[in-house]
């Protein structure tokens, strides 16, 4: 035999390579950025549903997290700043059979896109909205966001943020979201389970993912990426079913994470088609 013993069989591929546009990897996210982990978790969740890939579509807005749509090997849309949710709503209402996932950031979904978010939640639009919350505008270099903690430093609040941040789970719940969860990128398995549940169920599902932005938030606020992850490990408390009003982000007091809300309510497309197409075969 002349077989070269060092020559191994074809190198195994990463288990998510079938869902990634590998020709676009490495992605643009910085070293230590958590978006990649949240994105990977989302892909694992999609895979775990067992639903045919061509029934999925991913929509995102603008920003670091919003680049996710460009790396998923599914029909995907990278739209305008803040407008991922209405774009996704159009897709959902025109073809209710699709599983529509919105993957975007806190700046995109809650500042410029805040109005769209609350209305889609009110309608219980059947979307899975994943918000990577890194507490800042990463893409533009670390400006204050609607989620930046009070007194935190940013390029536009150099003396500390004078404003209060949104409590995103509370906002989602108050607006009518029927599934509300918060995890961190460290709680990857729980996060994957939550996204998987959100995809399978019907209704407006909102999952906030706390994620470090070491370059544009951590650096100005004296937090190295591993320190941020340790905060996620040591200063979070899993409390499923807790009132979202208690979900403020304050790592000094401890941050509650978990699945806060999971209720049934008829969705926008169900109600529309039941009301307006009562005689159709569907």
């Amino acid at each position, binding site marked *: 035999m002349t077989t070269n013993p060092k020559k191994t069989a074809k190198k195994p591929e990463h288990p998510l390579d079938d869902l990634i546009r590998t020709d676009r990897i490495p992605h643009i996210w910085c070293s230590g950025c958590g978006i990649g982990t949240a994105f990977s978790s989302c892909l694992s969740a999609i895979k775990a549903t067992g639903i045919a890939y061509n029934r999925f579509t991913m929509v995102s807005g603008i920003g670091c997290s919003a680049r996710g749509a460009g790396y998923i090997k599914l*029909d995907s849309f*990278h739209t305008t700043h803040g*407008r991922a949710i*209405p*774009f996704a709503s159009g897709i959902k209402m*025109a*073809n209710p059979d699709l599983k529509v996932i919105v993957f975007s950031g806190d700046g995109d979904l809650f500042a410029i896109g805040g109005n*769209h978010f609350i209305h889609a939640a009110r309608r219980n639009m059947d979307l899975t909205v994943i918000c990577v919350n890194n507490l800042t505008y990463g893409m533009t270099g670390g400006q204050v966001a609607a989620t930046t903690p009070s007194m935190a430093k940013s390029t536009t609040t150099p003396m500390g943020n004078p404003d209060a941040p949104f409590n995103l789970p509370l906002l989602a719940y108050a607006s009518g979201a029927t599934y509300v969860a918060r995890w961190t990128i460290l709680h990857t398995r729980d996060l994957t389970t939550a996204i998987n549940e959100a995809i399978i169920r019907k209704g407006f599902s909102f999952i906030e993912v706390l994620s470090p932005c070491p370059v544009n938030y951590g650096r100005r606020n004296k937090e190295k990426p591993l320190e941020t992850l340790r905060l996620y490990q040591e200063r979070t408390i899993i409390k499923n079913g807790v009132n979202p009003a208690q979900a403020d982000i304050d790592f000094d007091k401890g941050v509650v994470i978990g699945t806060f809300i999971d209720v049934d309510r008829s969705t*926008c497309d169900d109600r529309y088609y039941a009301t307006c*197409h009562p005689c159709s075969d569907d």
Partner: protein
Amino acid sequence: MRPAVLTGEHYINGDVACAEGAIAAGCRFFGAYPITPATEVAEHMAERLPDVGGAFIQMEDEIAAMASIIGAAWTGAKTMTSTSGPGFSLMMENLGLAVCTETPCVIINVQRTGPSTGLPTMTGQGDMMQARWGSHGDYELIALAPSSPQDCFYQTIRAFNLSEKYRVPVLVMADEIVGHMSEKVVIPEPETIHLIERPKPTGRRDRFKLYQPGPNGVAPMPSIGDGYNIHVTGLTHDERGYPAMTVEAQQEMMARLKGKIRNNLDDIIETESYRMEDAEIVIVSYGISVRTGLSAVDRAREMGYKAGLLRLITVWPFPETMIRSIASRVKGFITVEINLGQVHYEVERCAGGQAAAYLVGDAGGKIIHPDKVLARIEEKF
């Protein structure tokens, strides 16, 4: 359940005629936000879309309305929105997205008087330059101007056909008078309505490139779920649709976006001539102002002037070649429009000093009286 094409004679306003044209053209998704004087389009679509299995959604604002119709268009549906001035301004951002991503969709703008909130219930034609250049960046799109309810029906169908054929947003630039005026509208038999569907890809999925142009410069367009795993972005992109942050990619993309319109002008541009055979004075007009022009031409002829009317049905892309060739053989142009000079400057540019170009405009709120046009003819010719 009424059919998609309501063949017969109707007494309806222009807004409703736009909606009926859309349904007849195959529009099956409509997202909008109420605004005077375009609300009736939305109201009628809300009533009619269930008849044909379509979906209507009233969005939270016009930004969302425009986003929703672009998203819905990628499911394979023909989609439309309607609005007026302030809402049109809000749509500009995503109008650019539709241009950049080559998404077919139709926007009805029932113009009112601006700037800002202006005269919400009164007519105007002040959005014509916004229609051309309102979104940021350089681009081409198509804008049509109906001048009667009957025309609203046909121009909306034509808007869908052009939009599907060239994968470009098409604007139907109506105005308050056309939109709110009720007249007889004849809806023909469905077989006589020619419809165009967007080119669909064929061939191997693994070799598919989202923006690889076909023979007329337009790339075939798959729908979500067809298995092509498309990526659609408003960033400058290459033929695969992937973001490409290079000046070369920008040049290539712009050449495609502009080329598919600029190289098909004969198909896209439509005009109508009235008593133009021996005309020396050409009234250029569009939309409701065409009626001013028609009356002015007849009366000018009675007074001994060789006047004719050129009606722009397609306003953008502008019929440059036609105006240039007319300019070489006439004394002058008078552009009649309900603003203080927008399309007029385009006419003046194309007249290029070969013929005089004058404006009969109005600050807005009312149709221009033919007397004003006649006075200008008497003054200048």
